[in-house]
């Protein structure tokens, strides 16, 4: 069988779904970040696929932008995590519930 764009898109969707589930289910903030990265990269795959499929470079350019944003976000996010969880041994996102109503 020929590998067409639909296969790539399906892979991308699966990756996105896995990333989402990871964000919702996992309790370790680092894992949650990894899942977010997974979601971003699945979107990258989608963009590249369409770029190749439509013959336009627009998608690939946007991938660059997304990567830049992801990198910046990781920097900020990891800094936050480090400062929040500095004093704990085990880190668990469920323990941050002081902002409850």
């Amino acid at each position, binding site marked *: 069988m020929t590998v067409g764009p639909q296969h790539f898109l399906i892979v991308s969707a699966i990756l996105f779904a896995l990333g989402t589930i990871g*964000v*919702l289910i996992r309790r370790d903030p680092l894992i949650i970040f990894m899942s977010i990265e997974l979601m971003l990269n699945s979107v990258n795959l989608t963009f590249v696929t369409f770029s190749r499929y439509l013959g336009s470079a627009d998608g690939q350019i946007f991938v660059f932008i997304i990567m830049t944003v992801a990198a910046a976000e990781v920097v900020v996010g990891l800094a936050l995590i480090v400062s929040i969880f500095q004093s704990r041994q085990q880190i668990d996102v469920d323990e941050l519930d002081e902002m409850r*109503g």
Partner: protein
Amino acid sequence: MQNLVWGILLLPLAGFLINSLGQRLRPRLVQWIGPASVFLAFLCAVADFAWLQGQTSVARHADVIGWRWALAGTFHLDFGLLLDPLSSTMTLIITGVGFLILVYSVGYMHGEPGFRRFFAEMDLFIFTMLLLVLADNYLWLLVGWAGVGLTSYLLIGYYFERPSAVAAARKAFVMNVIGDWGIMIALFMMFILFHTVSYSTVFSSVHTMPYAGVTVTVMALMLLVGAVAKSAQLPLFTWLPDAMEGPTPVSALIHAATMVTAGVYLIARSYPIYQQAPGALHTVAFIGAIGATLAATMGLANNDIKRVLAFSTMSQIAYMFVGVGVAVYSAGMFHLLEHAFFKALLFMGAGAVMHALSDELNIQKMGGLRRKLTFTYWTFLAGVLAIIGTPGFSGFFSKEDVIGAAYARAVQGDSWMWVVWALVVITAGLTALYMFRLFFLVFHGEPRDQALYDHAHDPGTAMKVPMAVLAVLSVIGGWIAIPGTYNLMEQWLSPVFHRYPVNGPRVDAVTAQTFSVVSLGATLLATLIGFLIAWQIYYRRSPAPERMGAMAPALYRLFLNRYYADEIYDTLLVRPIKFFGNLVNRFVEQDTIDGTVDAVGFITRWLSGRVRGVQTGYVRNYALSILFGAVVVVGFYIVGGR
């Protein structure tokens, strides 16, 4: 020149503002500003009086418009002042006697706490009273009316630390409001019928209404409610004896010479309405006649020097009511003028006695003061002789005017007037009796409280000079009219009472020229008998009130308790109203209104408690809700929405 009328009105207002806003003013300055502002107003009043004299008789009517105060469709109302003989007379009395009383107060209130407040409130009173008499329409009259009610409340309750004074002030004010209601109803009727409340239009139009019809009678009676409340006549009189809780100058000015006469002024001013409603006129005359007699009986049994004078005031104002009630308006006004002189004098004398005896009020504790308070004795005597109508004194002429008017109306064919006449003649006798009872008990006989007697002394100059002036006026003030010959008062006031076309009893059918020996003789006889009885009982000895009361115990109790009017009102009106008020308070105020407001709060809190549950604080829950939101939005576009 007629614009000086603004000066009459506004100068006391200036005095009030200066005294009330000047927190740092020293008493010496305050005691100058108060009387001075009123004195200047008096000068303006005299100037305007002279100006009026200079006009021809029919031209003595100046409507000085200030500005257009209200404009609503076809209705308009100006703020204007009316200068005519009637209002000029009133302004002279208010500012003249007011000035004398203020000078007296400088001495009387010396050293009292709240000295500045006193003079400020007195100036405010004079201002509002002037507004009442100078207004050229009923609305501004009502404003002045309410204003004098307010200042009366403030001044009765001057010693506000005394619960009895506070209660008296409140009582006076509540009864006053009943009167305000009456006038308002009359005002509403005027508005509906004539589309205006200004004197000129109302008075020109009222004679076209059905004579003695229900509408005009109701209007007149509503005004009468106001007059009765303000002038402390039957049945709204119970506030006046209690009002003696205020300082004596207040009693002299407000509850003797001026405010309580506002009712008489109102009726006289509204004469076209009353002319059109003879039933109302008769009511006025009867309220006057019966009230005069009842008040005299109440004064007979009382042992408080100021309260006896209060009942005397009620009785004399009832005479004025009789005067206007028989449609001889100038007679009522004449008595108003003279009464202002001698009543203010009598109250000043009472104040002098009180000051001499450390504020003692009970006449049973007095006696023999003739030797110690000589000046007060003679001035008080002048007042007493005037009030009982001793021939030659001021009260004689004005009382004769009123009594003679009633007699003349009776002779002319109005049979009801015989009752009125009989009652006022009897009252003349009673007046002599209770006034001389007072006089003898206070000044003659043996002192019944030696300690008080020893410290007694005549008052200071500030108090003596006004008393002297009023004593002179009480003696000679009546010579402006002699029954049977001339009546300058009636001449002076006639342009006012002939200005508008009226029906009903002819205003000039009874003049001073109508003089009756029978009436005069009967009155003098009654007065003499009253005096002789008082002489016989009280001149030398001072029998204990219990012994006197034992002669007719039921009557005595009736008089002493003021015909139980207070108790009757309490049972019939005060208690049901309080009960109803509590009911409304519980069911409407607390349950319904408060309940509704509380419920709103309760529901809000409950709702927010439920909604608060969304904020769990867990990051993952929030992530989930973001996901849901994203799904909804994307799904919306997938399904094909724009």
